[in-house]
Every structure is written in C-alpha cells, then in structure tokens.
C-alpha cells in the first residue's frame, strides 16, 4: 500500500482506530490480568517458579483434565485472621470516610460560598497537597507522631504529660493518615457538585420560613447527595485496600487487607492465597465500585 493509500484508508476508518487503540490496551493490561488472578486463585501452591501448579493438564491423548482448587478460598474463610482482617479494613475505611465527610463537607461549602478570588486561592490550597507525594505526606506523620516526635515533645514542653504517649504504630495513627491523605478526594467532588447547585432554592426555603436545620436536611443534603456519594466512594474504596498507611503508621498492630495481600505475595510467596485474597477484596468492593461508576456516568451526562 502506498503512503497515500494508508492515509486515505485512515481517513475513512479513523473512528474505529480511535476506539480500538485504547480499548485494546485496556483489554490486555486491565481486564485480562483479572482473569489470570482468578485462575491462579484456583490453583495449588507449590515450591517452584512460578509457585503454583497448572490448572489444566493433558491426560492421555486429548483428554483435558481441569483441576479447580477452592481450598484457597476455604482457607480464607476458615482462618480467623483473614475474616477479622476484612472486617477491620472495612471498619477503618468506613470510619475514615465519615471523618473525611465531616471535615470536607463544611470546607467544600465554605469554598463554594466565598468570593471568586478567595475561591481560587482556597481551591489551590486544597489541590496542592494532592499533587505532592503521597508517600512523603505519610512519612511527615511519622515525624509528628513518633515517641520522640513533634507532638509528644510539644505536650511534654507545655507540661501536659510527663512521658511520651504512644501515638505512632496505633489505630489512631492509621485513622489520621487515611483522613489526611484522602481529604482532598472528598472535598473536590463535593465542590464540583455544590458549584452547579441552584442556591436560590436555599433562600426560597428560608423565605418560606424553614429553620436552618430543616433547610439543611431537606434541601442542601439531598441536592448535594451525588457529591457526597462520589466523594465518599473515592475515599472508601482505595482506603479499604490501603497498604502504605497501615504499614508505616500502624506497625504490626493494625490489621488491613492490603498488607496481608502484599505480605502473602512477597514474604510468604504464596501466590494462590494472595490471588484469592485479591479476588475476595474485589468481591467486597465490586458493589461500591459499580455505584461509583453509576454516579460518575450520571455526572458526565448531566453536564
């Protein structure tokens, strides 16, 4: 084909090319891997490289023998540690999401209602930490919370305590870390939602004699619900699978599923169990993810 021919056929079929390239990329590098994880979660572990037995064996001529092992999932269910860890992860991420909402909602509200110049500055201040390294922001809290850290030193200096209290390597530290790193993820969707709202409705409610609390509960909250849902899911879903925060701030005391997965894979080299842990985590999160997809889709359409 000549160069002209290529360019002519590209002009005719460019739409399919535009769809095909990213679609193909995601099929191979995003969707296919999940099937591999699922397959390995149903295999037996062994000491080899790779450390699992093949699922499909060819016995005799052309007789395919498929061996599915549900032991890995049964193991997760029977071992107390895993069930406890899933529950503990969900508890930590739900409480953190709630705290983020309680801090983020008034902040987003304050940003939306301020003057244009101030709005730009405040938004900038919220977005800036989002662009700086996540890992370093978690590390910053290690310095604040350590036994010899800033907070303890300060409390001792003003005479409130005599000896350092244990802040680092605790549940408290993990909550602080998650709320700290995910707060912008809560504020930004809330802000985006609130900015499009018709605020005259609030004035109308007030004029009609509604008390501020009534207005807030019956007008403001329902109107900002899509923002609340999107922001909460953006915090809740990744926080459930969080690894770095429980590892650096929680030490050995805090059980979270992301850490178990990482350790099963890297330290214990038990790939089938690690894969089963991943699939189980995905099952727990699939509903919130679909809800997010739904809210996100509506947002783009309504614009």
């Amino acid at each position, binding site marked *: 084909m000549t160069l002209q021919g290529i360019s002519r056929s590209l*002009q005719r079929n*460019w739409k399919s090319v535009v*769809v095909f*390239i*990213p*679609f193909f*990329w*995601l099929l*191979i*590098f*995003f*969707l*296919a*891997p999940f099937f*591999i*994880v699922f397959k*390995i979660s149903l295999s037996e572990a062994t000491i080899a490289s*790779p450390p699992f037995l093949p699922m499909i064996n060819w016995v005799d001529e052309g007789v395919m023998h498929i061996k599915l092992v549900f032991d890995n999932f049964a193991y997760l269910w029977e071992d107390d540690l895993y069930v406890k860890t899933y529950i503990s992860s969900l508890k930590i991420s739900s409480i953190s999401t709630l705290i983020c909402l309680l*801090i983020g909602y*008034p*902040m987003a509200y*304050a940003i939306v209602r301020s003057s244009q110049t101030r709005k730009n500055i*405040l938004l900038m*201040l*919220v977005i*800036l*930490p989002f*662009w*700086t*390294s*996540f*890992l*370093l922001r978690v*590390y*910053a*809290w290690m*310095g*604040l919370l*350590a036994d*010899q*850290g800033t907070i303890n030193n300060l409390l001792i200096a003003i005479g409130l305590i005599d000896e350092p209290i244990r802040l680092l390597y605790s549940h408290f530290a993990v909550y602080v870390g998650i709320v700290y790193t995910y*707060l912008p993820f809560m504020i930004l969707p809330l802000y985006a939602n609130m900015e499009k709202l018709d605020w005259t409705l609030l004035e109308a409610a007030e004029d009609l004699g509604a008390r*501020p609390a009534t207005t807030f509960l019956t007008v403001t909250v329902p109107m900002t619900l899509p923002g609340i849902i999107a922001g909460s899911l*953006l915090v809740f*879903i*990744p926080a459930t*699978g*969080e*690894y*770095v925060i429980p590892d*650096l701030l929680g030490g050995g005391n805090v059980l979270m599923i*992301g850490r178990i*997965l*990482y350790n099963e894979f890297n330290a214990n080299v038990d790939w089938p169990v690690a*894969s089963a842990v*991943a699939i189980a*985590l995905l099952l727990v999160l699939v509903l919130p993810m679909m809800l997010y*997809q739904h809210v996100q889709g509506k947002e*783009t*359409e309504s614009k």
Partner: protein
Amino acid sequence: MNNGKKSRFLFTVTCFGLAFLYIPMLMLIVYSFNYSKLVPVWGGFSTRWYGVLFESEEVWRAVTLSLKIATVNACFATILGTLAGLALVRFGQFKGRTLFSGMITAPLVMPEVITGLSLLLLFITLKEFIGWPDKRGFTTITIAHITFSMAYVAVIIQSRLAGMAQDLEEAAQDLGAKPFRVLTDITLPLIAPGMLAGWLLSFTLSLDDLIIASFVSGPGAVTLPMLIYSRVRLGLRPDINALATIIILVVAIGVLLAAWIMLRQQKQRQLELQMSGED
C-alpha cells in the same frame, strides 16, 4: 444558627482543615534543616543533609529512572486517554461501549495492591507464553503506569468535551469539512488545555506510585518512591526530609505557575469577550 455564626463556623472548619493539610508538610521542611541525625531533636540549623543527598549515587539513579518512566508514561497516557475520552463522548453508541467506559472508571478507584498483583501475574504469564517481557523494570513499570494514568486523562478529556458546546464542530461540518479534519482542526485544539492537564497529572501520578511499581519491577530497577520507602520503613531519616523538601518545593512552584498561567488566560478571554460585546 444565624448567618454570622454560620460563616464563623465555616471559617473555623476551613482554617482547621487547611492547617491539618499543611502543618505536617511544614514540619517536614523545618526538620530537613536540622543538624541532628535524630529527626525530631533540634540540633541547630544546617544544610548537611542536602549535601548527603546530592552525593548519593543511589538517589540520582532512582530520580533518573523515575523521571524517565514519568515522561514516557505521560506522553502515552495522554494519547490513549484522549482517544478514549473522544470515543466516549463524541461517538455515540458503539459495540462494547459499556465495557469500555467501565474499564475507564475502574482504575480510578481500584486498590493499588490489586492492580499491581494482577499486572505482575500478567507479565509472568506473557513471559511464559511469548517470551516477553524478558526482564522486568523500566518497560513493565511504564506499561503499568500508562494503564492507570490513561484513565485519569480520559476522565479529564471527557468532562471537558461534555462541558463544551458542539456548535464549532457542527459549523465546520456544515462548511464542508470532513469529520477527520473537524477532529484535527477544531476538536483537538479545543481540548488541548485538557490534554496538558492530563499530561501533568499522569506525570505526577507516575512519580508518586509506590505499590504498583514495587509489584511489577524487577531486580535493579528502583524508582524514587521505592527508594524512599525502603529507607523510611525503618524510621525517620533526615536525608529523606531534605529530599521531601525539594520535591514539595518543585511541585508547589509547578502548580502555582500552572495556576497563574491559567488565571491569566481566563482574564484575557474575559477581556476579549467584553471588547467584542462593546462593538
């Protein structure tokens, strides 16, 4: 609650929230100038840890690798994400659209441990069957980063396209431009700011990623977050404070510069609109 009380409450929460976001980073910067090896014990002002940092060959290697990955990732992710965003907003219904849009939003919320594990297992399986990739490192990390970065770019492009009136594109079409010309001459220039934002975001996301890179990396390929993590796992390190200070300052300057340029453009556009209104 009357209005005065309400705005005072909002003001207090906002100040508290911003202090919560910024004090830890400020402390990080303050202690990078501490002479003492023990991070939180003040031993006098000094820049000695910056010297230690710049002399470390390990740090330079990690910085170079991370910057290389981030640059290649940002370029590919911008192209793929822009194509995906265009397809989702401007092409109407096509076969597999639901699956496609699902695969675009899922990486945004997928826990990193799952993405990392699944991609590593894919690379191992591929190696077994087609012999590629023969070693894990730059290529595998870049591919992994492109996969989640392109989703962010697609969402940016999507929201920009959805918020944009189609009248310019329709006008061009009415004047006889072929759809492909409309794309290259009208649509792409209009979404260029979105593409730039997507490029910058992809670049930062890649520089910031620890978990996925740790999974898909191989021996010898250590990115900057991997290096930082391996050092801070065991406790506080003054040289990491120095590194953090440099990173935070670079990012802050970059973001402020971008915001300033955007604000200026916005003002200029408003001015032009006013001028054209006066005619």
